[in-house]
């Protein structure tokens, strides 16, 4: 339950009713299919969702999660749920591990008679495991999946129709772009749990040592290439933390913004009205982006040599050690650096502390066409009984769990330093206010939300993004192919793929 605590003049435009009215496009889309929603890629108004606006609405409503969930499923409901998700691991910041543990504890206190059998899976292995499990009728009843994956399972007919309305939340409590990611052929197959965009991160001390303005991010992608070379030449340290490992989700999340910024794409997902029928992997914008990474990796040798086997995880320690100047990441990276700097010992300690102090966040660089970033996040889905281990899905238990998970409280707490609440009322909660005070640079990454572009909402998306795009990058970075040949080969693969499935 929520009650407006105070209403500032600037908050008038985000009054609940006004917000509902302003989100009419989203509601209309739900009635008319995906084309209407795709009109406004994410539905996030850049003029509204500014850092100051986000700060102004934080802490303006009270949330009673228990009461909200009780309206969906009685608190004494007895049941069982199997649940898979990609959660924290050993390297995660302590605060994330704490909130994750508290979440399950709070759920078991709210629903003491619902038994949860949970599996926390590694990000790079979860998709293959879930695909195999679903084919072997051993899928969990519910799973929280990265935004890119759900539509594939929906297209295979393995997911149940499930929408925020099923757990008592109006659709307009979620960004239209997030709702688009859970939709397939005019039906809704999940509830968003969190949504985020990344920012551009740099080490101000290395910028200064290289003679660059330490307080300004490179304005364009062409500048990133130039800065990277300057840093390598002047300091001997690696400039841009390129990530090009194949079959790893980190890779498209960092390269697609560059492609989109330069006017390219995989399909036409960056267009205002995407059809997902045009292939842009061989466009000039994509080729320019490929040439830029070739310039950094091959010509200037200013990106880590290990980029071809690196995920973002492998960039973190070099950055903390002051050996890498620039990378793309969530606010989570700051939490990681802070956490690991605290744990550093000996000679590493002052270096790590200095890097934390010199860490800066800015908006992603512009390209020839736009400023862009991946509109990321996760959604929770419910599988059909015939692909679930026991052949049965405890729908009430799933509803209780998803209501708890996607409500304003836990969608805020579980994305504390890495994302944003999917449930927009989370932005108005007291926990959002705490986050803004506690998590440095959150305002910067959140201000990137209006530039967010969702990955194509097609079942082939995971293959295009995790395999075709990284292999295209590897083909040029290893000089196995020219930029033109690699982009043409990738475009042909996608053409065959779209035609084949």
């Amino acid at each position, binding site marked *: 339950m929520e009650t407006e605590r105070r209403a500032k003049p600037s908050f008038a435009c985000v009054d609940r009713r006004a917000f509902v009215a302003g989100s009419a496009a989203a509601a209309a889309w739900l009635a008319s299919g995906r084309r209407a929603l795709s009109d406004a890629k994410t539905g996030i108004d850049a003029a509204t969702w500014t850092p100051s606006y986000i700060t102004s609405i934080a802490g303006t409503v009270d949330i009673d999660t228990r009461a909200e969930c009780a309206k969906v499923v009685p608190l004494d409901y007895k049941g069982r749920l199997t649940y898979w998700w990609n959660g924290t691991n050993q390297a995660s910041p302590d605060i994330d591990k704490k909130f994750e543990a508290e979440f399950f504890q709070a759920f078991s206190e709210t629903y003491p008679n619902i038994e949860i059998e949970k599996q926390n899976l590694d990000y790079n292995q979860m998709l293959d495991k879930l695909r195999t499990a679903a084919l072997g009728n051993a899928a969990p009843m519910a799973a929280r999946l990265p935004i890119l994956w759900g539509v594939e399972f929906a297209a295979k007919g393995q997911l149940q129709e499930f929408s925020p309305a099923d757990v008592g939340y109006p659709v307009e409590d979620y960004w239209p772009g997030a709702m688009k990611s859970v939709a397939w052929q005019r039906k809704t197959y999940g509830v968003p749990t969190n949504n985020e965009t990344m920012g551009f991160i740099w080490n101000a001390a290395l910028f200064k040592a290289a003679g660059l303005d330490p307080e300004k991010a490179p304005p364009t992608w062409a500048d990133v290439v130039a800065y990277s070379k300057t840093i390598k030449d002047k300091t001997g340290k690696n400039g841009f933390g390129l990530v090009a490992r*194949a079959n790893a989700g980190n890779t498209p999340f960092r390269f697609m913004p560059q492609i989109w910024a330069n006017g390219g794409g995989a399909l036409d997902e960056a267009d205002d009205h995407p059809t997902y029928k045009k292939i842009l992997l061989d466009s000039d914008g994509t080729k320019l982006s490929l040439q830029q990474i070739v310039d950094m990796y091959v010509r200037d040798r200013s990106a880590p*040599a290990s980029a071809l086997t690196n995920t973002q995880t492998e960039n973190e320690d070099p950055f903390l050690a002051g050996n890498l100047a620039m990378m793309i990441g969530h606010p989570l990276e700051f939490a990681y650096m802070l956490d690991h700097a605290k744990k550093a010992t000996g000679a590493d300690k002052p270096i790590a502390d200095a890097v934390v102090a010199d860490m800066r966040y800015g908006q992603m660089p512009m390209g020839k066409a736009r400023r862009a970033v991946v509109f990321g996040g996760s959604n929770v889905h419910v599988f059909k009984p015939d692909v679930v281990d026991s052949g049965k899905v405890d729908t009430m238990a799933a509803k209780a769990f998803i209501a708890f998970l996607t409500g304003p409280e836990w969608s805020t707490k579980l994305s504390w330093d890495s994302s944003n609440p999917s449930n927009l009322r989370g932005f108005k909660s007291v926990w959002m206010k705490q986050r803004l005070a506690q998590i440095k640079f959150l305002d910067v990454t959140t201000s990137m939300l209006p530039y967010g572009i969702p990955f194509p909402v097609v079942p082939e998306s995971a293959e295009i993004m995790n395999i075709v795009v990284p292999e295209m990058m590897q083909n040029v970075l290893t000089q196995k192919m020219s930029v033109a040949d690699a982009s043409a080969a990738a475009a042909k693969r996608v053409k065959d793929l779209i035609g084949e499935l």
Partner: protein
Amino acid sequence: MATGVDRKAASGTPRLRAPLLQRVWLHRVDYLYVAPALGVMLLVIAYPVYYTITLSFFKTSPSLAMADSAFVGFDNYATVLASDSFRDTTMNTAIWTFFSTLVSFALGFGAALALDREFVGRGVLRGLLLVPYVVSAVAASYVWRWIYHSDYGVIGALATALHLTDRPINFLDNTHTALASLIVVNIWKEFPFAMIMMLAGLQTVPEHLHRAAMVDGAGPWHRFWHVTAPHLRGVSVVTLLLMAVANLNSFTIPWIMTGGGPAGSSDIWITQVYQIAFGRVRFGLASAYSVILFAAMMALGVAYVRALGGAKSARAE
């Protein structure tokens, strides 16, 4: 269970083969003993093999529902065999299997010969050399990734510290060195197996033959070549075949260390099959690939069974 027919054969009398049904009846208890194992094998091996072969003739839907699948005959096989990636991957697989097997065997054999001699600390050394074999392949792969790391790896750091190179060596992010680097790791992991097998083989070489050869004035090389080596022929062939099969099936090290990259330079059959099936969700195509791999394995399997027979004959002699 020994039979009259077997005893006759063993005693050197002319071999008279009884009719099939009679022989089956004579061995009825043997069949009962192996029936449970045979049942399990049929369940966990025969059915998947049958299913894989069936799938290989279909263009499958991502949901694997056969109702949505289309029979395409040998199209999947034609697609696999005609693809550029198959040619490259086959070459990688051949290089991977050949060098991993041969070098592991040579090192293992050398280590076995050294450890067969009496010297102080032999037991400790045997234990130490077994460590790579008992270490989890997953853990070993991650450790080696960091040893090889192209920016901060131990080898690269040593090479630059010793002024052997001016920058860290790019092992895994280079199409020319990735596969060779993986083979080195595989050899490190596999050679203790060859060592154990050959040590066991060396225990079977009769000591009195060595002594007789020494009396006849044979030097170490002649004793090895004319006494030791002939006795090890059978175990060597079996070891080489087992290692070849294991290497052909080896997935963990290449998958974890490079995922088949960069740009497919360390992709081998098994990683390609996995990628096609679970990364690209083409189960029909992956099944055709698997059947090709299965045929290669079966060829090695037949060779293994024949070698086992040869080894028995060699021991009998």
